[in-house]
């Protein structure tokens, strides 16, 4: 039961994060910006709308939004959101976590190609490049953490073990946290990798794959994206702000505050950095992998 509360919190809080990030960007650039709760309103509005499907689309296009959200929700069940243990756990569940995220990406890119649109093909192509490189980085992060904590499930890698590991292997954990933060920007399609606010199809990555989705389907796509943001944010919060001796409610509050702080940080990064050229994206992800592997190398002695 105690594990359900933070999960519900994460699912409810997810649409807040893009709002917080956007608001931070607006404030940093001297604008007032959209309300923080804008995504909630968008989702409600889209949820009541009619649907339009592209002429050539097949069942893949209809299934994909559900799989996209389903993968993220199922992955959330394995993250120790309360700081101790996840709703479900078993040795090696981090592989399932990565697999479920890959499942979502598989569905989303196939749906993009299903429309037969050149722009969505472009988005799929870029998403596949980013995903293909993000996967080893994620695994390197997990590997380094498993070396640091000796654990083999997400609940051990990001649960109570982290708090004990900080005094011993702090330098390594800093590296992993940095690598995970870089990965978050890529996986959640935020700047400097992607620009969620762009209006030019040629420069979009994630947004362009949603061009043909409408109504509730689009709502699912947006929500799933926000949930991925929240998932990686939650991993980051667990890593840098271990629960320690907090009570259940305090731990849940810690999660919420941490997520908002992560979103604000993402906004700060977005407003202070120019977007990377496409050629630089592999370099960026390789750098994230280098950080994680440096963390692992520091442990080998």
């Amino acid at each position: 039961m105690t594990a359900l509360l933070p999960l519900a919190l994460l699912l409810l809080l997810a649409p807040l994060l893009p709002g917080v990030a956007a608001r931070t960007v607006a404030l940093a650039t001297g604008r007032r910006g959209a309300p923080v709760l804008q995504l909630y309103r968008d989702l409600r509005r889209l949820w009541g709308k009619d649907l339009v499907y592209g002429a050539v689309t097949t069942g893949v296009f209809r299934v994909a939004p559900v799989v996209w959200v389903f993968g993220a929700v199922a992955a959330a069940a394995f993250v120790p959101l309360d700081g101790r243990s996840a709703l479900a756990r078993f040795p090696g569940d981090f592989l399932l976590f990565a697999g479920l995220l890959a499942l979502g990406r598989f569905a989303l890119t196939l749906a993009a190609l299903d429309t037969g649109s050149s722009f969505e093909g472009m988005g799929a192509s870029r998403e596949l490049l980013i995903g293909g490189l993000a996967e080893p980085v994620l695994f390197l992060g997990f590997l380094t953490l498993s070396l640091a904590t000796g654990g083999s499930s997400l609940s051990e890698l990001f649960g109570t073990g982290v708090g004990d590991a900080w005094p011993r292997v702090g330098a390594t954990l800093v590296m992993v946290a940095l690598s995970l933060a870089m990965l978050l920007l890529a996986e959640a399609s935020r700047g400097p990798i992607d620009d969620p606010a762009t209006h030019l199809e040629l420069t979009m990555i994630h947004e362009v794959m949603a061009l043909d989705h409408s109504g509730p389907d689009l709502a699912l796509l947006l929500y799933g994206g926000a949930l991925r943001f929240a998932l990686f944010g939650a991993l980051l919060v667990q890593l840098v702000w271990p629960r320690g001796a907090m009570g259940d409610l305090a731990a849940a509050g810690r999660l919420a505050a941490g997520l908002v702080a992560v979103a604000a940080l993402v906004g700060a990064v977005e407003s202070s950095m120019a977007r990377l050229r496409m050629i630089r994206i592999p370099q960026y992800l390789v750098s994230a992998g280098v950080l994680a592997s440096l963390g692992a190398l520091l442990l080998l002695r």
Partner: protein
Amino acid sequence: MTLYGPLALRLDPVAVVFLAPIALIGALALIYAPAYSRLGRGAPFERGRAATLGHLATLTLLLASMALVVVAANTVLLLVAWEIMTIASWALLTEEHHAREVRVAGLGYLVAGHVSGAALAVLFVLLATAGGGWQVPVAPVDAARFGVSPVLLFALALVGFGTKAAVAPLHVWLPDAHASAPSHVSALLSGVLVTLGIYGLVRFVPFLGSDPGDWGMALMALGAAGACGGIVMALGQRDVKRALAYSTIENVGLIALAIGAALVAGSAGQPLVAALAMSAALLHVWNHAIAKGLLFFSAGAIARLVGSRDLERWGGLLARLPLLGTGLLAGAAALVGLPGTHGFASEWLLFMALFRGSQTLVGPARFVMLLAVVATAFTTGAALAGFVRILGIGLLGHPRGPEAAAARPPRDAALALPVLVLAVSCVGLVPFLGPMLAVIGRAVAALTPGAPIDRVARLASPLPWLAAIPALAAVAFLLYRTWLERGRTIRRAVTWDCAYARPEATMQYTATSLAQPVTRLLHPALRTNVDWRPPQGLWPDAMTWVSRTPERALAEVYRPAFRRVAALLGFFRRIQEGRVMVYLRYVGVALLILLVWFFWPAGTPR
């Protein structure tokens, strides 16, 4: 006492593991073969009744020889079966020999088969002289005591079995052969025959004397190279069956890596890691057989119906050929290892082995495990991209040619049945992973002494529950659909294309452009050469853009090497001239040499 020992057969747990795919894919191929030859407009090799029977007989001979390879307990018997297998598969592969590319591929296959057979013959003779007898070994031979170098034995086993298994860099024959064979033959070659090379490796490599850990490292390095290289090459192919063939190289690489990890961990005294890795290797043999069989069965039929294996001529086929398209989709999902398919299980086992190995091993072995995690993770990520490319470009979007637009589903249950059976088992086998692992566990126990099989089974016990993932997703989708269709108008409209009202097939992203970010990134390794004639002048008339990703190992290593060898052998051709006078001269010279050899006054009289 016969000359080479009794020609015994042996049906042990290891043999059972490798017999299962032969039986399954073999039976389905026999069902599929006659229907496949009737398929498509102007079926290029429609046969008479006698020819069909001959084809089926050869197919049966191939299946029998493969089964014999697995159960043979005597190396001579194994070698005989191995050669029959090579010849029978070659005959099947060159079925469509009116096409030049098929003949070239067949020649390459035959050369590779001979190299493999020759290496095995030498290996078996050396093993016999090293005290192993003519039995397929069950205990390590003490090769060094008999003056036989273990390195030589390993090299021979690697060439002999590794060539069949297409372990990099011995893979060059495979893409041509598997692409140009009839599709059920491709399914058998890729899904089953290749794994017999793996069979040989797991049967022989642990027992070649000296420390198997060293061989393990070598296998891991070769496996990682094959896995990464194979999947990246697959991304550059337009020919669907060629891309699938490269994916076979990738998967064999992963299996070789897993076997290597098992050997490394076993010799370092980590039986749990070794057992996990060996289970991963054997389970992946099954998974790959099912998924690759399914992919070749469905992709082959589609290629026949569309009249081309070129991805850029497919498109829009999931709507037109729902069953075959779904088969391709399911096989790809399983091979990528998405959770909810059986493919995830072997991937999970492999990663668990590598992670545990990184935690518990020390020294270079640990470093190798770390690198293997990165290589394997890269492979799975790239495999996702590779199969999204095949599915998205090949099955979805607008039809990219008139043939694809006109494709109609075949009314032939014999085609549908194999696809259906394998597609269902991609998801349906997940709840039965426990019993499957129990069968594999017995083989693992035979191959890695002291393997804690029960601990592997306990670790893997959550895996069958992952069958809930597709089930829950399906329920969620159905609920969502019923809710969606209540009181809501659902329209169809033209694809939104930046306010351009007539999106066409030619405007879609192509297979080449989809893979372009990756091929550009890996250009130093891939050397994709682009032949671009840009538009010129004010009124440009024509422009071309052609890109090809060549097989570098073939073009830069094997061809030059073969050319050298050919030049060397040209000398001998000059000796063999065909005139009797010349031969008499040779005899004369030989006589002279022998006379001098024997009667030359030497220190000691002979």
